Structure formats: structure tokens, C-alpha cells
């Protein structure tokens, strides 16, 4: 009998202690928190981790300067490139009363899913990745701003260069992800606007390794240019196999998705003379070079394509926080109404919150590294472009 009494007393005590524990929730008021969401696990983790490190780099630099009025803590959350996980992460960060602003996402579906969440909580969402125009233009929200150019913008650049090079007959090989299909559609629009012709668009899947069937078809079509709409891993495979199949004198171009140095590391000699309509060239400005040095001094994982944008997102958030204090609504207003200067150059929003300039660059691959075309030996004539006989 007494044994059971003891059991019940224990249970009651336990419940009380747990409830009691609850009252001492850790809540610090002098520290301000900012959020970062990106793919930290899964297939796109490389980009997410690079961006995360770049973000932290800026935060550390600003705090190290000593005169920042707040103690800033970054809350990192993983969206695993999955919309459901992304919404959970966004809800967590946006509903946290201690977090004042957040920098988010690489995958467009995740961004599309969470833009409503951040709007609901009135929290500024600085997008350092994602390319889908609807995240900014599909709504009337003040909260989301995007530092990185849209796919539309980078494909317009690609179209311009294609016309300059006189390469008008293209075949597009795209992966079936949201990124690949968007890029395919944007490039098609850009080329057709300029009088170019897309002979065919052929889809491949992420994780596919053998492209022989696809490339046989391409050989039949005999295009002047091959555009790979997708990301590094498959692009490298396509390039290597296309070279084996004899497609050596075409203009091989890709979107920012292949801007990683890994592309050259994998394709080795086959990377020579490939093009990338990409994002900001860190080596073109002093600030950029400083960023690269600072980053490489601290981290071993590469910063990948979005590093500079994440770095600048941190700068934007920290500046807004410094100016108006930890007030979510004021930060949203501040960000939208100001222009900034970042590593990528001037950041100016259009009326919807999209950065207009964004440092778009056309790269050519030289000795397995991406080099700005205008500064390359191809432009100066020391090396011949692949299609020039």
C-alpha cells in the first residue's frame, strides 16, 4: 500500500518539478538574435554550409570591431532543401520573439513556402539564394528582399553574350528540378527574344550519371551551343561525356548553378573554355578579394556561389539593426527603404524588393577556374574560343 503511495507522490513531485523547471526559461534580453536558414544537410549542403560560414564571417567581423551596440547571436536552422522542413524552420525563427530578422534559403520551393510565414510575423527575410521571381514579385509583401539576381536576369546576360558570340542555335539539357526547369524556361525566353533558336530541350534527372543517350541526340541536332540548366554534379558529367562524344567545338554554358570550383576540379581539362552566366565575381573588387582571404583563413569548406550574397545579407541585417534597434517592423522598413554597399557592389531594391544589379558576371573556365570573361585570355585573344576554327 505504502509503495503505491510513494509512487504517486513521486509522480506528483516529478510533475511539479517539471512545471517548476519551465518557469526558468532561458530568455536573454540584451542579446539580439538573427536567423539563418539554408540547406545544411542533404544534396545541396555544400552551398548551404558555404553560405552559413560566410554569414557567420560577417557577423564575427562586425562584432570584432568592438563598437556594435548589441551582442548578436545567430540562430542557424536547416531546411534540408525540403519545403516542409523549411516551413518548420521558418515558423521557429519567425515566431521567436528574440529574433529580429532572418536570411534564408537556397531552394526556390522552400522560399516560396516560407515567404508567407515571414510575412505573417512581419519579419524581414533577406534572401541570399533562390531564383524564382514569384518569391518577390508574386506577392505584395514588404518583408522579403532578395540580394541575388533572379534567373531571369542571369539568363538575360547569357542571351546577350550568346548574341555577341554569334551562337544562336542551342540545345538545352536541363535537370528536372525546380532550378533546372526555371533556368531552361528563362534561357529559352531570353534566346527567343533575341532571335535565337532552341533546337530542343532534353530533361535529365538529378543523380543521373549516364548521358550517352541524351548526347547522341544532341550530336544529331548539331547545335552551336549547349546550355546545361542545372547544377555542378550533373553538369560535370554532361561536359565530360559530351567531349568524349566529339562535341568539342560548341559553346558550353551553364547558369550560376555550375559556378562552383568543383566543376573544374571534376572535369579537369574538359572544363577549358566552358562558360558560366554567373553571379558576382569575388575577385573583381578589393572587398571581394578581402572577403575571399578572410573566408579562407577561417574555413575549409568552400564558400560556393552564394557565399558573397550571404555575407552581404548579414551586412544588411546588421546595419538595419544598428540603425533602428531590435524592432522587427522598423527593420523591415529600413531594409526596404535603403540601398546598401556590399562585397557584391551596390545593392538597390526595385519597388518589390529585388536587387537590380547584383553583380552578374559572365565567366569562362580557364585552367579549371572560373575567370571573368573580360579578364580572361580568351577575351584578349591569347586563347582561342572552342568554336572558332
Amino acid at each position, binding site marked *: 500500500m505504502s509503495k503505491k503511495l510513494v509512487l504517486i507522490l513521486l*509522480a506528483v513531485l516529478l510533475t511539479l518539478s517539471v512545471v517548476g523547471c519551465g518557469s526558468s526559461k532561458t530568455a536573454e534580453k540584451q542579446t539580439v538574435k538573427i536567423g539563418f536558414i539554408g540547406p545544411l544537410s542533404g544534396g545541396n549542403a555544400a552551398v548551404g554550409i558555404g553560405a552559413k560560414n560566410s554569414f557567420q564571417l560577417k557577423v564575427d567581423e562586425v562584432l570584432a570591431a568592438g563598437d556594435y551596440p548589441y551582442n548578436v547571436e545567430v540562430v542557424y536552422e536547416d531546411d534540408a532543401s525540403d519545403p516542409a522542413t523549411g*516551413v518548420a*524552420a521558418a515558423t*521557429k525563427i519567425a515566431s521567436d520573439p528574440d529574433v529580429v530578422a532572418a536570411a534564408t534559403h537556397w531552394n526556390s*520551393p522552400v522560399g516560396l513556402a516560407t515567404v508567407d510565414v515571414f510575412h505573417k510575423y512581419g519579419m524581414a527575410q533577406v534572401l541570399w539564394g533562390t531564383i524564382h521571381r514569384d518569391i518577390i514579385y508574386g506577392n505584395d509583401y514588404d518583408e522579403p528582399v532578395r540580394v541575388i539576381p533572379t534567373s531571369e536576369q542571369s539568363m538575360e546576360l547569357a542571351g546577350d553574350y550568346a548574341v555577341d558570340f554569334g551562337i544562336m542555335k542551342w540545345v538545352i539539357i536541363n535537370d528536372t528540378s525546380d532550378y533546372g*526547369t526555371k533556368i531552361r524556361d528563362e534561357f529559352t525566353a531570353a534566346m527567343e527574344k533575341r532571335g535565337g533558336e532552341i533546337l530542343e530541350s532534353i530533361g535529365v534527372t538529378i543523380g543521373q550519371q549516364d548521358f550517352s543517350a541524351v548526347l547522341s541526340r544532341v550530336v544529331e541536332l548539331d547545335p552551336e551551343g549547349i546550355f546545361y540548366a542545372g547544377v555542378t554534379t550533373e553538369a560535370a558529367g554532361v561536359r565530360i561525356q559530351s567531349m568524349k562524344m566529339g562535341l568539342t567545338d560548341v559553346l558550353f554554358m551553364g547558369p550560376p548553378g555550375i559556378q562552383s570550383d568543383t566543376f573544374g576540379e571534376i572535369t579537369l581539362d574538359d572544363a577549358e573554355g566552358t562558360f558560366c552566366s554567373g553571379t558576382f565575381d569575388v575577385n573583381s573588387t578589393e572587398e571581394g578579394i578581402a572577403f575571399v582571404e578572410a573566408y579562407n583563413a577561417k574555413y575549409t569548406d568552400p564558400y560556393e556561389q552564394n557565399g558573397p550574397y550571404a555575407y552581404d545579407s548579414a551586412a544588411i541585417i546588421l546595419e538595419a539593426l544598428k540603425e533602428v534597434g531590435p524592432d522587427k517592423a522598423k527593420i523591415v522598413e529600413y531594409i526596404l527603404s535603403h540601398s546598401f554597399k556590399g562585397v557584391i557592389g551596390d545593392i538597390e531594391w526595385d519597388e518589390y524588393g529585388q536587387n537590380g544589379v547584383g553583380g552578374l558576371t559572365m565567366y569562362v573556365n580557364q585552367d579549371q577556374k572560373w575567370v571573368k570573361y573580360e579578364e580572361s585570355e580568351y577575351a584578349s585573344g591569347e586563347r582561342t574560343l572552342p568554336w572558332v576554327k
Partner: protein
Amino acid sequence: MESSNLGKNARFSLKRGLTPALLLVIIALVYAIVAYENWAVVLLCLAAGAGLFFAYSRVPAVKALITESMRTDKVLLLVTGILAALVIPLTLRTQPYVIHILIIALISIILALGLNFQVGSTGIPNLGYAAFYGVGAYTSALLSTKLGLSFWISIIAAGCISALFGWLVGLPTLKTRSYHMALVSIAFGLVTYIMLNNMGFTGGPNGIKNIPAPEIFGWSLFSSIRLFGNTYPIQVNFYYFVLIFAILAFVVSRFIFNSKVGLYFNAVREDEIAAKCSGVNTSKMKLLAFAVGAFLAGIAGSLYAHYIGYISPENFNMNTSLQILGMVIMGGMDNIVGVGIGAFILSVAPEKFRSLADFRMLATGLIILLMLIFRPSGIVKQQIRVYAGKIFGKENALKGDNHD
């Protein structure tokens, strides 16, 4: 004699409150684990929970006590549970993230209950369940965004079309042996995913956005409610909304389990040939299991679509199927309560592991592995059907008479 009678009555009155009280303790522990970020608290509560669990499974006296008390206090237990479920979100006013996790857990419970019909009750290994989930979600989303139909029509349509899809998937697979069924289901799941991803009208890989929230007589679930002067986050609305569906799913599952259909399901699972010989229409039962399971998945899909407001094929891939399967297997197959617990744990755990960021997926995989190695029968073991003593009692009594 006197003292033992006294003792019995005294024990009886103590037992009366035991399981509901225990349930409250467990709920408090779970609440602490889910809602608090402080790892010390979380670990302490986990340890307490583990301790309770061990006491239950290893100490026979405790087990007997609890089992008996569960039987006598069923109503009180249910009332306590439902009251707790209703009250909890009101305490989470400032933590919509936690309510969000609970909503996702509730949707997962509905999904797990559906899959349980197929895998647990009928023994059909279905590894492509996310296909039904996806079909339901897309049906509901497309009907409400492209055709402007109301949520209520969409959700019913989602359930029905999903059920139809389930029935269609079940048809050709009637003759396949259990082993091959697993493989066919994988293939079906993958084909559905690829089709959803590549077809134009489903929005392709970019999915469908701006799915409207459900409306009850014109009142949208996206509007915050004010109670006692406090504004409550909209998650609370959805929580209660989905809770109702989850409770309905529970009730329906229990009803089916206790009915002849449930019995037939189990018969098909245990020995299909014997069942056939005993006159059970095994084909009809299998198709029914597919349809019912798919129906629940369709409902869950619709709820998910209208809550999050955005769906894409990524929500319904192989990983999702495997996650739901994990919930059913870990929770305890063919056990409705067990499956619910499994669903709760497996939807909350990955969220809890967020602080591990990079290592989150690795940790989740390890947890599943560990749970499978150490308790393969599931958290709640499969219950053996117990029939009311009355029928047998009568027979025994008759036998007894004969002996006399």
C-alpha cells in the same frame, strides 16, 4: 477475511486515479521535451520517461497494475487525454513553432493510421504510401486554386480520389506475394513522384502555391482569435481543426478494428490461404485496406496543403513514405495507440534535433536504427484480440454444468 476485503477496497480506490494521473505525468514530460530548448530539462524528462517505460515493461507488478487500471479507467483516461489535448495549445500562445510541430504531428498521426490499415492490419507492405498522400494534397490544392472550389468540397474530393487511386493501385497487385508487394509499392511511389514533378498542370517541380485556408461559414482559419484579451496565433486554429480530424481518424480506426472488417483484415494478414478457405473474400479485403488507407492519406494531404499553403513534389517523395512506414513499425503495427505514439515521436524528433543542424539527418537515421535494434516489436506490442468473457463464460458455465 475482513482485512483482505478492506485492503481490496482501499486498493481499488487508489487504482481509480492511477492511469489518468500517469497520463498527465507523461503528457507533462512530453510537453517539457517538445517545448523547451534547454537540453538539461529535455534530457531529464527523457530519462524520467525512459525510467517509467522500463518500469512498465520490466517490473511485472507495475505492468499488471497499469494494465488493469487502464481497463477499468478507460473513460476517465480518454477524458483526461482529450482535455489535455484541448488545453495545451492555450498554454503555448507565445510559441507558435511548438504548436506547428504538434499540428504536423497530428497530420502524421492521421497518415500513420491510414498506413496502419495496410501494413499493420492487413499485412500489405506498402513502401510508396506518400503517393496517396500526394494525390490527396494535389487534388485538394488544384481544386481550390484552379477551380476555386471551397475547402470542404476539396477535402472530400481529395479523400475520395485518393481512395480511388488506392483502389486502382491495389487492383493489379492482388496476386503479388508480400515480398514483391513491397517492391511494387516502391515503384508506384517513385512513378507518382516523377509524374507529379514532370507534369505541367501540377505545377511541375515548383508545385502549387497560395492554397487558401479552410473557411468555416466564411470565417477563415487564417484569422487570429482573441480569447480573454489575448491574441492567439493562427496555428491554434489549425491545431483544433486538425485535432478534430485526428480524433475522427482514431475513432474510425478503432471502429474498423473492432468490427468484422478489422477481423478479416487480420485474417488476411495472418494466413491468406486459410482466410480464403474460411470464406473471407481476401481480394475485396485487400482492396478495402488500400482504399481506406488511401482515403486517410488523402484527407491528411488536403489538411497539409491548406495549412502550409504550398506543396511541391518534394513533400511526397520516397523519404516521406519511409518516414511514415517508420512511424507504423516503430510505434507497433496494428496497434492504433502505438501507431499514434510512433507518429508523434518521429515527427517531433527531427525537429528536436535542429540544434544539431548538419548532423540532423544522420541523427534521425541513427535513432531509427537504435529503436529498431532494441525494440523491434515496436513501442506498443501488437495486441492479441481479446473477446468479451461473456460468450466463453457461458460456454464454460455450460461445460461446468455438464461436469456437475
